[in-house]
């Protein structure tokens, strides 16, 4: 067992480790053997006190099982104290169930000893089917000093590309230019399409400029923007000049 387990000495000077017991029944059996009492006529008060002392002094990492047993012992102890009439045949020994379980468990422990012996004998006879020993232990932990670490960190950092920053370049819209172009088109034709305004290869600045110019001219009433149906190409049409207000 690798983890250190809580240790205490019981009154008889024996070292008790909770880890060495496979459960509360095992611990109880140990106490019963230490005290050399008759398992079928358990001095319940004495055993209960000892049990509580042991689990109280040890870290209760398996608390639930041990606490349940502690509660059971205390209940039995209390039941034993209840007054009884002499010659009461109806009286049922409150220890009976616990004694039955202890005997049953003791039987299991005896079988465990038998099984352990059988397994030890079998382990001394090898069959064929030799299994290779487990692979070698993993390599020793990395031996490295601070300078190595810093050097490695620098090499890693050097591999990182320059941080990509977006540079914002002001690109002024050329609304005047677009307006002039539209005017020129309007002079030529009565109606034309959006694609006539922004030819192929138009930059986003061209598109925005043309769009704003069209909206501005439509607002002024120089032209009208219509769309025969949703998502259809827009039709730009010359409006008859209006009388200035």
């Amino acid at each position: 067992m690798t983890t250190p387990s809580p240790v205490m000495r019981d009154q008889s000077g024996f070292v008790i480790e909770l880890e060495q017991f496979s459960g509360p029944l095992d611990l109880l059996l140990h106490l019963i053997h230490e005290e050399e009492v008759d398992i079928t006529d358990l001095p319940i008060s004495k055993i209960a006190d000892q049990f509580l002392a042991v689990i109280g002094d040890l870290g209760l990492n398996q608390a639930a099982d041990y606490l349940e047993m502690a509660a059971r012992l205390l209940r039995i102890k209390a039941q034993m104290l209840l007054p009884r009439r002499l010659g009461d045949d109806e009286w049922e020994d409150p220890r009976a169930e616990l004694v039955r379980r202890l005997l049953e468990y003791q039987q299991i422990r005896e079988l465990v000893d038998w099984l352990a012996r059988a397994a030890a004998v079998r382990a001394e006879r090898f069959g064929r089917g030799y299994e290779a020993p487990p692979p070698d232990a993993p390599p020793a932990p990395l031996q490295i000093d601070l300078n190595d670490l810093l050097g490695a960190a620098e090499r890693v950092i050097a591999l990182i590309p320059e941080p990509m920053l977006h540079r914002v370049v002001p690109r002024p819209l050329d609304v005047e230019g677009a307006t002039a172009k539209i005017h020129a088109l309007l002079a030529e034709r009565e109606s034309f399409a959006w694609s006539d305004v922004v030819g192929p290869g138009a930059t986003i600045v061209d598109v925005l400029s043309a769009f704003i110019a069209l909206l501005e001219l439509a607002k002024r009433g120089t032209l009208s923007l219509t769309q025969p149906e949703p998502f259809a190409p827009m039709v730009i049409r010359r409006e008859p000049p209006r009388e200035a207000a």
Partner: protein
Amino acid sequence: MSPLAKLLEAALFAASRPLTLEELGSLEPESGEAALRAALTELRAAYGDDHGVELAEIAEGWQFLTRREYAEAIDRAQFALRPRRLSPAALETLAIIAYRQPVGRVEVDEIRGVDSGAVVDKLLERGLVEIVTRGEGLGRPLLYGTTAQFLEILGLKDLEELPRLEELSVALRPPTPAEEPE
């Protein structure tokens, strides 16, 4: 040795696990069980005291095993390693399952007085117990039983070789009748 005994010798040499009588019978289906048993007896006798290995009857089958007296030397040279010992908790659980099978976890927990879930899982993983059926009643609990692997690691021929409960020094008696308190 008879031809059949030699065939069995070869098969048992090649196999890395105990072979059952049925498996050995499949080598030469026309030879009957009686002939098979006779050949095994012959083979076992041939591997008498004059050999470092012996023919062992184990896990409801047959297997060549090295003799015990060579364990130390083989182990020391690390030509083969002794299996790891089972923990007391594992042995307790195995004992209960072996004697009560098919048995559910609740019963194992009750007898041991502690939760045995993790131990049972580990035994399942090592192939020492298996789920044999589901019980009646609430939630149809899984019921466990021991495997051939269990017999093999204990060197048992079959479950009959386990000690009978009556032979144990702690005989399980019904609850003692009421006694006068002190």
